[in-house]
């Protein structure tokens, strides 16, 4: 089984089995091109290389400390790769500012929730919606028509998104007063408000019970059905297997597998990474 996965990834492998005909039309959305990231002597990402295609749900998994979040951070502009580059929608984003990358259509959530705690749920989402607004300080100061138009637009979008993620009643509550699960949902809504093409979810199910996880699964599928490509970091193997089209596995900053969920599950290196290897198998 391992051999199938170690072959270089070709688009056919990426799609669902029935989608072979569409393989040629699959458009790469995000290309992580041989990215290496060092912090002093520590190599956090070592020649990581994978491509994310439009419309899929890609899982990024790996044991703790494998470099999953680091990879997210490199993609969203928090870290700059030491080597290699990242292309998004064909454009090189290495070296771009964080807010510019967001404007290009990449949005993310955080492993440890990072909402704006003293703003209401509505305001949190409005901040996301403002990413594409152009109201200047002057038009805000004098309440020019653009301010009113964009304010209305942001508000409507926020209401729609609160409804979409399933917390419509919490509009005027402070983010810090929402329950844990609601905060996770609000974070997704805030990210969606920036009109992303690619949504990166960093362990969105952390701390969820099975029922909540199931709801989250539905939500992720719903997001994909809206035409948003999803990159998902997740620990829960069942959730990952259930929702992703394709999986990339990292271990110690290196990619060790890339393929369909069924293939990855059988890959001996992945099993070894998650469960450890008997001593006689080493070497």
């Amino acid at each position, binding site marked *: 089984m391992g051999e199938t996965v170690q072959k270089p990834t070709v688009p056919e492998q990426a799609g669902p089995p029935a989608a072979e005909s569409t393989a040629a039309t699959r458009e790469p959305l995000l290309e992580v091109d041989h990215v290496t990231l060092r912090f002093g002597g520590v190599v956090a990402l070592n020649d990581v290389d994978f491509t994310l295609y439009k419309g899929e749900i890609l899982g990024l998994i790996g044991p703790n400390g494998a470099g999953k979040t680091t990879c997210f951070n490199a993609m969203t502009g928090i870290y700059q790769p030491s080597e290699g580059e990242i292309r998004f929608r064909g454009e090189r984003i290495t070296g771009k500012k964080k*807010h510019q990358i967001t404007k290009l259509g990449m949005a993310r959530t955080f492993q440890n929730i990072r909402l704006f705690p003293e703003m209401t749920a509505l305001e949190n989402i409005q901040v996301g919606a403002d990413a594409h607004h152009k109201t200047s300080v002057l038009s805000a100061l004098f309440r020019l028509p653009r301010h009113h138009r964009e304010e209305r637009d942001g508000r409507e979008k926020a209401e729609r998104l609160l409804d979409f993620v399933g917390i419509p009643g919490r509009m005027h509550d*402070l983010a810090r007063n929402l329950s844990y699960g609601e905060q996770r949902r609000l974070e997704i809504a805030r990210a969606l408000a920036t009109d992303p093409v690619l949504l990166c979810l960093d362990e969105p199910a952390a701390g969820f019970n099975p029922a909540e996880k199931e709801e989250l699964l539905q939500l992720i599928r719903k997001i994909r059905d809206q035409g948003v490509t999803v990159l998902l970091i997740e620990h829960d193997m069942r959730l990952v297997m259930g929702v992703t089209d394709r999986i990339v596995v990292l271990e110690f900053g290196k990619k060790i597998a890339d393929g369909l969920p069924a293939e990855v599950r059988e890959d001996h290196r992945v099993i070894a990474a998650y469960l450890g290897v008997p001593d006689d198998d080493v070497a």
Partner: protein
Amino acid sequence: MTSVREWIYSGRHAVSERWHHAPRWMRWAVIAAVIVFFYALPNREFYQWLGPIPTTGSNFGQVLFTISIYVLLAVGLNIVVGFAGLLDLGYFGFFAVGAYTVAVLTSPSSDLKTLWPWLLALPVALVLTMISGVMLGTPTLRLRGDYLAIVTLGFAEMIRVAATSSEFLKGQRGFNQIPHPPGSYADGKPIFGVLDPRPYYWLVLTLIILVVIGVRNLNRSRVGRAWISIREDEDAAQLMGVPTFKFKLWAFASGAFIGGLAGALFAGKQNFVSSQNLELLNSIIILAAVILGGSGNIVGAIVGGGLVAYMIERFRGIELLGIQLYEYRFMFFGLVLVVMMIFRPQGLIPNRRRAAEFKDRRKEVIVGG
């Protein structure tokens, strides 16, 4: 102590609840009444009925003018500290830039000898203070928290030292005969003269109202949300598409604008500007005013600025057991700050968000036993 805090809190909370649920017309009526009250305040016919409120040791109109300048400064600093969360310890530096620009352009003791009228120098002063805000902000706004605080502190000191020792800025001798704002009554007497401080107060009061409307508009827009998101979590804000650097610069520039306005008004009233006006203490007083009033709340900043300035002036001319209380005014001021930070760390009129936070904490304490 908890119960005292409880009592203070519940009282304020009831008022704010009632305020937020009051019909619109009623709120406007209250605001209008407050504004009328403050316009009427410097008239002897009015304030003689107010018991111990008017100051005894100095002209009440003059005191009100000083208070109004502090209020204006507090409203400006509140943008920087309260909204955007940038700790600026050198805010008074912008006041200095405004006052000195007017002085240099208008005073006969200036080397420039331009002798402009006050009104012509005003826009130049405002633009220059905004530029100085951007100039200070561009290299320094990459710093955060304590580091930014130290740099801004240095900025105010630089301005003070430059004013003290540069020949061009005249040091302690200062600039005299700075012209007053224009305008005259029907009988030809100038509105803004030397003897009557009230017109200056009315002018500043009017400008405060305009500035507050502007700041409120900004706060309730994309700009205000960007500022607050920066205060809450700068990295997350940037990842949500907020150009944080740009909006931090705007916070600095808007704050500087208001500081410069206060400086220009002060110069126009006082006739005289020298390096003695530029103590570090002023920056600290304004920051204390913002925090005392309730950081992040415009009304809080107004109340804080007003109370702090009034408190300091109120001691003038009061003698107790042979001691001039005015000499100890900053001791009382410090005492009030300490007491405030124990009983109401969120400020007198905290912003809606902060109020909720402290309310929750209180609940947690109760639940926890």
